């Protein structure tokens, strides 16, 4: 049925390099999610309490990020920014592109999260004599964290999957890039990428498990 002879051994010999690639992959995912959170919060605030200009700018960013492909955004970072004199290497362009994308989706997460916390909580806190910043910091923010926790962890796992797009801009240090390096040397595409697929699956599952465990410790209520 299959007119192909599988050669798995070279792949297992490449495994250490691929595992290092996994670390780079996770690193990019964490970095792009962290940046995405920072900008996502800023965008959410601009949309809810910003003036016309800030809100409009935020809306443009969000709509642009959600209506164009992630690969397109990465291309923009890698090829497009060159016109402004900003030449990002593939690592930076990939991270920037994924971060931009994350911010667009997380902005809506934060907006929805803020809406989900009843204004009566703020009212109760203010009635006890807390100032507005205190009420926000001590009562609203901890609850917001709980609400946005899983959306953020899901976005991070999605970012892990998105890092594979680094192939298209020539990144060769993350899992996909390392796999491709071996692929072009040996053309054992199926074997190498099957192992890569397994590794991606494991990373996704481990991260989800870690997120659940952390949630169990963080949110006792």
């Amino acid at each position: 049925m299959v007119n192909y002879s599988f050669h798995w051994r070279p792949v297992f010999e490449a495994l250490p390099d691929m595992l290092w690639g996994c670390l780079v992959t996770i690193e990019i995912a964490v970095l792009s999610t962290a940046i995405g959170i920072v900008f996502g919060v800023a965008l959410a605030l601009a949309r809810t309490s910003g003036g016309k200009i800030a809100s409009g700018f935020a809306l443009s960013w969000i709509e642009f990020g959600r209506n164009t492909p992630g690969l397109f955004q990465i291309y923009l970072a890698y090829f497009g920014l060159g016109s402004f004199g900003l030449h990002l290497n593939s690592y930076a362009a990939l991270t920037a592109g994924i971060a931009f994308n994350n911010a667009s989706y997380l902005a809506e997460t934060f907006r929805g999260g803020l809406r989900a916390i009843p204004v009566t909580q703020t009212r109760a806190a203010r009635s006890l004599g807390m100032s507005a910043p205190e009420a926000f910091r001590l009562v609203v923010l901890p609850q917001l964290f709980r609400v946005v926790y899983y959306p953020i962890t899901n976005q991070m796992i999605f970012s892990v999957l998105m890092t594979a797009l680094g192939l298209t801009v020539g990144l060769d240090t993350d899992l996909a890039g390392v796999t491709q390096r071996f692929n072009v040397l040996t053309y054992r595409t199926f074997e190498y990428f099957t192992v890569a697929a397994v590794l991606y699956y494991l990373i996704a599952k481990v991260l989800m498990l870690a997120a659940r465990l952390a949630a169990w410790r963080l949110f006792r209520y």
Partner: protein
Amino acid sequence: MFNATVSWHDIVFMLRGAGMTLMLTFWSVLGGTVLGTVFGVLRASAPGWPSAAVGALFDVFRSIPLLIQIILANAFAPMVGLDISAFAVACVVLAIYGAAYCTEIVRAGVLAVPQATRRAARSLGMSWWDDLIAIVFPIALRVGLPGWIGLALGLMKDSSLVLWIGVIELLRSSQIVVTRTQEPLLVLAIAGAIYFAISFPIGRAGAWLERRWQDQ
């Protein structure tokens, strides 16, 4: 700002790429929805280990980067003697990827129909099939449509990944024009505008439908 080096010929070329994007989207949404509906109804109606197995299988497709799936499928086809075009490989992979998400959307939609309502239908003598078509389908549709539209738009955007195996869709055609004209920002801006023009109205229409149905 409009530079003469980007000609109308280039834009037409990009629009042909957009047409390819839409074709890929069409087939993947069709395939993904059909498969997803079948398995979604299955998962919702027959809990237990078949449902769990299907769920776990599709979960695999959601936990591996789509680009990796495309590369693997493209390498696998010749291995089993399949002489199919890159376009066909792309459609199959995107359809399965779409089905992986659509299964969950359909399952959630079917489960959203109150058991009491379904029991009432069966008590009136309706068969399982009648109940599904007349009762479950309309309600599940309303519940699942926003998610489904999101999925369809997602597939449209994800179709850009098939450039890796040589399909000339919108993003690849843009890249080709950039190579020729050396105007990356302008060309990508045009590509972005085309993507936006396809995605934004559909997204808005979906949001409008959702609001309208919520009011009813």
